Structures are given as structure tokens and as C-alpha cells.
């Protein structure tokens, strides 16, 4: 698979939904496959909350693969032999694109908490500039899961003529009250970490690791399902040798400790707050006062909406709401609810039916 990584600078900057402006910004992107001559085989992949541009292929020395490697690749559902697949690290993230870790040209110091608020609409606008840079006037498809699915939906609303198809998986047209509530607990854990220093931790060369870890542990519970936790860990005790913390009793505790610890090593706390705020703030129908049908009436792309039965973060009902509104305004839209034991994370796992549906939709 031909893989390229690029850091692209956008000197024209970006006017943000909040009214603020980024005078210039950079996007870190990865591409797979080759763009054809008439530039018609582009597929844009949007990542979820903690994802990044490394969607497919081997990403490090440990031979770990990209977050959607089982969906994207040669001969896979998103076939890189046929399509030119692009994934960019979202603005405000911490994997190479401009974000809180970047240097603020005004102060010559890292932005930190001063990086402006970013919304799903801003991400889509920045990705449109990326499309222009790549010379792709129309994506054959824009797709993503969770927060990535929200971006795919917003693409079909913001730039109806710039994509043929959109894949909206394990997502919703807006975050629910419960989503916001969960995210607020995570943010509070970070804010109350004494190393957070009101968001200025970078200036003191420390990280609020404990807060990030707690936030991620809670996150993992919400991304999972009761059934899969029961299946993976049951009530099994952790053996003494591999206990992360001496206070750990059960395997599930050890797992959450491990995942939280790992995440707190690599993720930036200000990014965490910015990303979750973007997720909470998303409401596709905000401009139409909650009228989803009205906002979807401008969509020209064909939509594929997929929900997963064990997902309690963005449950199947959220997918069905998008389908119903799209149908009522005559937008072509298919909707399937797949069995997935992995809860919200199901969109990351390639079940046979999931792969068939995505492949069938792309090829149709």
C-alpha cells in the first residue's frame, strides 16, 4: 500500500465558527493509494475523538496498525487499490496538526489553553481547504465513526456538491445530554488535577497525567458494553505479577488502569478538553432551530447510516433519527443496525456484515 505522510501549511488561515480566527494553520495528513487522473477516486476518512491521521497501515516500530486498518487497505472495504484515501489529524488535536501544543506566533510559546475553540463545522471547513489543496473538487465518499461520523454528516450539509456519498457510523446528529454529562466528568478530572495549572501546565513542563488517566478510564467504560466487559474480564482476578497498581483486584480494573495510563502518556489535556467540547457542541440542526429535516433538505450525497446494537453512547436510535429526517426530505439514505458486541467501539471492528455493507455502498 502506497502510504504518504504530509504536513500541509494553510497560510490563508481559517475563520472559526466561534468568531475567532487562525491566521495560519497546519494539517498533518496521511494518504493511501493513488489519486486517479480525473481526481474522482478520493475518499476522505474523518477520525473520532482520540484518533489521528494514522488510519491504516503499520504506524510504529511495534508494528501496531492504524485505528481503521481492518477497514482501509488493499482489497479491504475501503479498497486502497481503487481509491485514494485521505485522513487528516483534526485541528486542535495533538498528533501533528495545529493545536494546543503548537507555537502561538503571537507569543512564541505553545498555545496551550489559549488555542481557540474548534467545532465540527470548523473541522469540515479545514478539510475543505485540504480538498482544494489536493485538487479534489468532489470526494467519492466522506466517512467516519463517532465524532468522525458527525464530520461526515456535516460535510454533506456544509458542502453538498463536494461529495457523492457519506458514511455516518455510530454517530448522531447531535450530542445527547448524557454525552455532555459524561464528557464533563472527564474534563473535571483533568481540571482538578493539580498539574493542570489552569491549563498552563506546558509552561511548567509538567502534564496532568492523573486527570487524563481518570478521564480516559471513564471514556473506555462508555465506549464499551456490559456484554463485552463481562466476556473479556468477567469477575476474574488480576494475577499478582501483572498488577499495575497494588490496589487492583479485578482484571477489568487493571485493564482500565493500563489503558488510562497509556493514553495519558500520549494525549494532551488541552486537546482533550477542546475535542470533547467540539463533540458536545455539535448539533447539525443548530442553525435551523432544531429542525433536522430542514437542514438535511440541502443534502445531495447518498447517505449510509450505521448504528450498533450494543452502543449506548450513540445508540441505534440516534442513527434512526438521521435516517428518518433524511427520508422525509427525499435524501437517499440507507440505515442498518449491526450486531456489535463492542459497544460504541464496534465501528472500529470489522465484522463480515459491516465490511460487506460498506464495500457494497462504496461500489454501488
Amino acid at each position, binding site marked *: 500500500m502506497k502510504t504518504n505522510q504530509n504536513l500541509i501549511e494553510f497560510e490563508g488561515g481559517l475563520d472559526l465558527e466561534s468568531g475567532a480566527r487562525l491566521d495560519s494553520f497546519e494539517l498533518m495528513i496521511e494518504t493511501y493509494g493513488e489519486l486517479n487522473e480525473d481526481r474522482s477516486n478520493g475518499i476522505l476518512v474523518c477520525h473520532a475523538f482520540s484518533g489521528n491521521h494514522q488510519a491504516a497501515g503499520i504506524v510504529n516500530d511495534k508494528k501496531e496498525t492504524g485505528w481503521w486498518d481492518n477497514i482501509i487497505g488493499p482489497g479491504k472495504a475501503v479498497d486502497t487499490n481503487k481509491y485514494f484515501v485521505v485522513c487528516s489529524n483534526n485541528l486542535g488535536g495533538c498528533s501533528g496538526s495545529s493545536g494546543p501544543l503548537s507555537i502561538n506566533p503571537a507569543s512564541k510559546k505553545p498555545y496551550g489553553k489559549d488555542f481557540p475553540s474548534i467545532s465540527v463545522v470548523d473541522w469540515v471547513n479545514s478539510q475543505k481547504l485540504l480538498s482544494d489543496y489536493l485538487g479534489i473538487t468532489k470526494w467519492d465518499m466522506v466517512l467516519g465513526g463517532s465524532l468522525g461520523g458527525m464530520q461526515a454528516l456535516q460535510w454533506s450539509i456544509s458542502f453538498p456538491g463536494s461529495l457523492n456519498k457519506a458514511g455516518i457510523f455510530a454517530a448522531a446528529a447531535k450530542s445527547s445530554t448524557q454525552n455532555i454529562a459524561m464528557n464533563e466528568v472527564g474534563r473535571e478530572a483533568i481540571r482538578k488535577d493539580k498539574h493542570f495549572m489552569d491549563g498552563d501546565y506546558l509552561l511548567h513542563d509538567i502534564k496532568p497525567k492523573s486527570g487524563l488517566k481518570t478521564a480516559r478510564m471513564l471514556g473506555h467504560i462508555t465506549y464499551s458494553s456490559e456484554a463485552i466487559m463481562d466476556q473479556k474480564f468477567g469477575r476474574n482476578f488480576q494475577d499478582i505479577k501483572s498488577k499495575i497498581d497494588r490496589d487492583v483486584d479485578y482484571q477489568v480494573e487493571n485493564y482500565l488502569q493500563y489503558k488510562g495510563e497509556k493514553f495519558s502518556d500520549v494525549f494532551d489535556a488541552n486537546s482533550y478538553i477542546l475535542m470533547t467540547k467540539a463533540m458536545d457542541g455539535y448539533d447539525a440542526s443548530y442553525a435551523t432551530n432544531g429542525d433536522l429535516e430542514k437542514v438535511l433538505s440541502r443534502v445531495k450525497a*447518498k447517505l449510509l447510516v450505521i448504528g450498533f446494537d450494543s452502543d449506548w453512547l450513540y445508540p441505534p436510535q440516534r442513527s434512526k433519527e438521521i435516517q428518518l429526517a433524511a*427520508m422525509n426530505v*427525499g435524501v437517499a*439514505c*440507507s*440505515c*442498518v443496525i449491526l450486531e456489535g458486541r463492542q459497544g460504541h467501539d464496534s465501528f472500529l471492528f470489522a465484522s463480515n456484515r459491516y465490511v460487506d455493507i460498506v464495500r*457494497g455502498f462504496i*461500489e*454501488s
Partner: protein
Amino acid sequence: MMNIQLTNIIKNWIPDDSRVIDFGCGDGSLLKDLVDQKNVCGYGVEIDHKKIQECVMKGISVIEKDIDEGIQDFESSNFDVAIMASSIQCLKEPHIALRKMLNLSKQCIVTLPNLGFWKCRLDLASGRMPVTPNLPSSWYETKNLHLCTIKDFEKLCESEGFAINERFFLNDKGNKSILSTRLPNTFASEGVYLLAKK
């Protein structure tokens, strides 16, 4: 699988550029024809995974739901024609389903197997549950909950206040014959109806 005669009857009843929903759309063949030939804006409701996959591959908008759920969830939608081919007898409450279908759509196309068909009567007279091309499953396998005759169905339409705008009666070869048309309750294997609210 729908025969050509039946497919043509249904196609002729569907106006160009109309909004169509097909409850139990199968592999999406009918909708695909309607999209290609009549430029309809079409949606299918289907529960069978294999058939859903075929719809997706044809580029047909398909929604994974059973028919009862679909009719319930889409009651406030607004279609020109709703199609329900060979499924009315499988629903929990056919009369309520029909009412709701006529709420979500100006007209409904309904096809149903006729239990009054002479071969069914013969089977029953010989002491067995009917098994015909239109009712192929044995009693222990069938999904049919509410079988009826042509007479029963039209009686229901009358009492519910549904207008029968058009109807055709097909024999077990899928043809409109003189007998199936003149004496449908005995000689039609299948009834095809275009219903509307009175």
C-alpha cells in the same frame, strides 16, 4: 419473487417522480426499476440481511426494520405510494397497519394470497392445510398470521372506509384470466389492490 404481470401492474399504478416506500422490498428489484424507469424517490424496508445487502449494492435506499416497526416509525412521513407485496397477512394487526399506511401515503398497493382459491379449498376439504405456490410453507414454518379470502379483504376495506381505486386478480400462473377476474374469490390465487382513503 414477483412475476412480470404483477410487477407491471404495480409499475403502472406509480406516477413518475413520486415518493415511494416499499414495505418488505426484498432485493430492491422493483424499487430499482421504479427509480430507473419512473424516476421515483424510493425507500425500501427490509429485515433480511442478504436482501438488504443486495439493495445496498443496487444503490437503493434501504432501511433495516421489520414491516410492523417501519409502519409504526414512519406513520408521520409523507409518501405518494406505499407498497406492501405479499406481506399483509404476516403483520400483527393488518387492519391497523393498513390504516397507518394510508396515513403515511396517499395510496397503498397491497397484494395478498387468497385463501378462498379453489386449490386451497380442495386442500382443506381433503383435511390438510393449503400449500400452493402462493402459500408455499407448511403450517409449522409459515410466517402468515392472518390469512383471508378476497371477500374477507374487501369486507375489511369497506368497514374501514378504504376506497379500492383499482384491483386485479391473478390465477396461480400469475395471469389475469377470465375466471380469476369474474369469480376471484374462488379462482384468483392473488389479489392486487390500489387503496386510498375515502
